[in-house]
């Protein structure tokens, strides 16, 4: 079986009206065997950026620490927080450094970027395992349930969702997608990022 499917897991991010949401499942498995139901794949990068890392479990842990290090170095050198667009390119170039022996991770990023007028603009992006960036305007998906996430998101998502509606949409999307994926599920976590708060909710899911 593919190395990308060894541990399972999925992540999705969606754009709303002056908000973004990102969600992941909580399963960590060894092929068909479930090992953990508390394995988060989404990590905070700054106060306004979250990074999802579905893929090989060991690389999730490695890259989480690697990006923490690189973002800290950036913050010290630049004396400011990294912007989501910049962070997306950091992720991309970090992965492309390993073009011929890649980390088996398909990162998903969600955040709010500063506009010149002082406002915030929703930002989502995803890359493949060698760092090819995909800046989508609606939603991005990754992981073992990606095709299922695509199908449901394509049917449920609509533009300019308010934070509460965006939460409902992304929750319904990930729950229904992972319920049809043997390698994902066992609970979900959803983060909704708005300009003045981050709402994090844990969803109970089917355990069968």
């Amino acid at each position, binding site marked *: 079986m593919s190395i990308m499917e060894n541990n399972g897991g999925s992540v999705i991010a969606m754009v709303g009206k002056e908000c973004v949401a990102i969600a992941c499942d909580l399963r960590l498995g060894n092929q068909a065997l479930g090992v953990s139901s508390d394995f988060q794949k989404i990590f905070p990068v700054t106060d306004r950026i979250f990074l999802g890392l579905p893929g090989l479990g060991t690389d999730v842990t490695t890259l989480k620490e690697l990006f923490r290090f690189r973002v800290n170095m950036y913050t010290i050198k630049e004396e400011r927080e990294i912007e989501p667009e910049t962070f997306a390119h950091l992720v991309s170039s970090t992965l492309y450094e390993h073009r011929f022996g890649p980390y088996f991770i398909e990162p998903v990023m969600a955040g709010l970027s500063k506009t010149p007028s002082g406002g915030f603009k929703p930002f989502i992006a995803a890359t493949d395992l060698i760092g090819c960036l995909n800046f989508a305007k609606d939603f991005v998906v990754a992981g073992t349930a990606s095709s299922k996430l695509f199908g449901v998101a394509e*049917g449920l998502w609509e533009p300019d969702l308010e934070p509460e509606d965006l939460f409902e949409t992304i929750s319904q999307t990930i729950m229904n997608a992972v319920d049809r994926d043997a390698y994902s599920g066992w609970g979900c976590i959803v983060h909704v990022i708005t300009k003045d708060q981050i709402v994090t909710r844990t969803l109970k899911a089917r355990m069968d």
Partner: protein
Amino acid sequence: MLSVPHQQPNLHVQQAHGPQQRHFNPYTENGGTILAIAGKDFSVIAGDTRQSEGYSIQTRYAPKVFRLTDRAVLAVNGFAADGNMFVKKVRQRLEWYRHAHAKDMPLRAIARLIQTMLYARRFFPFYVYNILGGIEEDGTGAVYSFDPVGSYEREACRAAGAAQSLVQPFLDNQASTAKFSTSRTIPLTEELRSLSFSLSAELFLSGCYPIGNQTLVSSRPTVQTNPYQSARQPRMDNAIYHKWR
């Protein structure tokens, strides 16, 4: 269409040099997607009409949803040649049943018939995924789905084919939000009937092109077969499409 690997016949008589192997693969996959939704007293069954092989489109209008009786419609996805032959054989059996019993075969009986017909070919199967939709004898809407060797189940909704992984979780979601309980049907009422119908059409509009051949099965006396028209429907200027519609 089935393609045979190109091999020039060897015209020269050669000396024997060990055993030679020939092979012929009798199956191909012709793509496409089908789906069905069961309601309280109706069911919706739909399929796209594209037939492809690999990245080539063979035709844009080869329907894979077939009316069997006034209360049963069969959608057949997978290997088109097997699908067409299978529908032909099912229809033949249904005709024999009509001659013998002077009535149409009930839906659950058709479902069991399809199981035995598929399992009869257990060791050279019809490479098709079947979805049977219609109205039961008690008037409830029903959907039956089958694997290629006849394993089957009555369900509230089912998708099969190339876009199964995209469509099935979406159908699950729509079924559960329509107050789906432990029942095998969605208790949709009259006003939700058209919604469910347009839902399946929207699915195909967002997923496939072109849309065509949708059949609504209703417990009402008249069976409607008018194609669904949506504001988002792409322009159909294909002469063949209009001719066959």
